[in-house]
């Protein structure tokens, strides 16, 4: 196994939540991300799944450098991305880029696609007109658009085309890791397949590593190599996609998978019973993950709970 590209070690992100009353008494800390550790290998697609408020987006923002972690370390190729020796925004840009969920809000409406792609290149020292033109043209073709279309403004494109442009912008600096934040959930159903196919093609073509944030388990199963399940700020289960989908061990994972409405099972709605939500204001519980199969980890508290029941 090669050395991991990205390592996240005991990541904590806490937000102060204002108390009530005039004096604002009872200010508490919300543990949005509560002791999350993982690593991402070169060429791998790792997905974080969970529902709204589980901390998956906050974790991704920390990796992007858009949210300062409260505790913990993030390393890229062994080099710390946080703390005093953190890289500058410019250095970080070549390591990690992001594709956003909403293709309508993710492009500057007052810039042509060309400018959105050429400006970052210029900023990073590619000043020769011909070189940046070549790179933009090649990239436009890679994402399934024509170089001529770069002269247009975002509003002249459909949602699916905009998402292609968003992907092009994420790739223009040739990063090694691309964070995909719900990359298809805002798109029309018939467009989703095209974007999923494109993302998989680009991963092959450029040897990209994906960190995908999603709540859509059918997309996760289709795209991922490994899956992490987050529940109220904590990692509750992690394993290969086969392990997670074929033998989910944590009750929350089972509940998530059972909740997917599947066209193949008409008339069936299944829902596993609720499990107790951890208190997000409490200090982290014992963060031990137990390995139940090679590479398949599950939070121990859940196992104990299951054993008690």
């Amino acid at each position, binding site marked *: 196994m090669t050395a991991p590209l990205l390592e996240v070690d005991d990541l904590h992100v806490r937000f102060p939540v204002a108390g009530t009353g005039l004096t604002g008494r009872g200010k508490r800390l919300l543990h949005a991300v509560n002791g999350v550790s993982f690593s991402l290998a070169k060429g791998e697609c790792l997905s974080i799944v969970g529902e709204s408020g589980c901390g998956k987006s906050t974790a991704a923002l920390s990796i*992007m*450098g*858009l949210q300062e972690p409260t505790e913990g370390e993030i390393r890229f190729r062994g080099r710390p991305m946080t703390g005093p020796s953190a890289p*500058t*925004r*410019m*250095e*970080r*840009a070549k390591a*990690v*880029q*992001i594709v*956003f*969920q*909403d293709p309508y*809000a*993710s*492009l*500057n*409406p*007052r*810039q042509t696609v060309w400018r*959105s792609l050429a*400006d*970052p290149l210029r*900023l*990073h020292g590619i000043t020769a007109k011909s070189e940046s033109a070549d790179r933009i043209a090649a990239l436009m073709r890679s994402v399934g658009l024509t170089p001529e279309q770069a*002269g*247009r*403004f*975002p*509003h*002249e494109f459909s949602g699916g085309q905009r998402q292609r442009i*968003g992907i092009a*912008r*994420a790739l*223009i*600096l040739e990063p090694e890791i691309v964070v995909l934040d719900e990359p298809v959930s805002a798109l029309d159903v018939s467009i989703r397949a095209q974007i999923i196919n494109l993302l998989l093609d680009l991963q092959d073509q450029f040897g990209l590593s994906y960190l995908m944030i999603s709540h859509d388990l059918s997309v996760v199963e289709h795209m991922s190599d490994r899956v992490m399940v987050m529940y109220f700020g904590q990692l509750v289960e992690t394993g290969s996609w086969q392990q997670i989908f074929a033998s989910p061990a944590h009750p929350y994972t089972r509940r998530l998978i059972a909740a997917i409405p599947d066209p193949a099972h008409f008339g069936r709605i299944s829902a596993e019973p609720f499990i107790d939500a951890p208190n997000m204001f409490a200090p982290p519980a014992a963060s031990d993950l137990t390995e139940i199969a090679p590479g398949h980890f599950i939070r121990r508290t859940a196992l104990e709970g299951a054993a008690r029941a």
Partner: protein
Amino acid sequence: MRLRFNLALGAFLTTLVILAGLLAPWLAPFDPVLDADLMSSELPPDGTFWFGTDAQGRDVYSRILYGAQISLTVGIVSQVINSVIGVTLGMTAGYWGGWWDDLVSGLTNVMLAIPSLIFALAVMAVLGPGLPSLLIALGLTNWSWTCRIARSSTLSLKSQGYVQAAQTLGYSDLRIMFTQILPNMMGPILVMATLGMGSAVLSEAALSFLGLGIQPPFPSWGSMLTDAQRLLQLAPWVAVFPGLAIFLSVLGFNLLGDGLRDSLDPHMRTRKP
């Protein structure tokens, strides 16, 4: 269609004011200051004096043409100062937040609590009367609304994907503010500025009336209007024409602002594929 009409009428009126100001030396049949003749005072409009004459026998038409220069200068310069102050403070406060935001917001609230004319009076009292101090006084008084709008626009634009993307692409904070945020809030800022131009013209009239603005005998629409108030019964034309000039130019600025906002919107601008 209606929007185009607004823009066209606004542009027409504003152009009219600009032309009047620029071409005043050639268009005016009389000198606005020197051609005073008490023998021909308070004459109603006729073939010689198109808009009549005032109490000193000066041609109202000529004075209005020259007055356009002052109104335009006051409107544009004071709003440029206002917008630069308001946008700089509002955008940085919204973007950086923290203590700077608290400070700017506090200052904005203080400014909003002081009646703007009183504040302008205080500034004029320090700087003394005259056009330059009038411009500074009006430029320093009305930035708080622009600042508020700039701050709230920045707060909402900051969470847009393209601003976050710019951060991850390595853009510096200043570059993000100028290339990603500022162009996307120009619409409301422009509208504020044009509305402010109208009110600046009116404030200039008030300050001139108090003897702190444009010094007589130089013509400004405001001071003409205040001079005319004694003559309202006797010679209404002395008041009507400056009043009309103020009304039409303020209307023109406002319509132009509205029209510009819509035409600056990239959704209205489509290129051929």
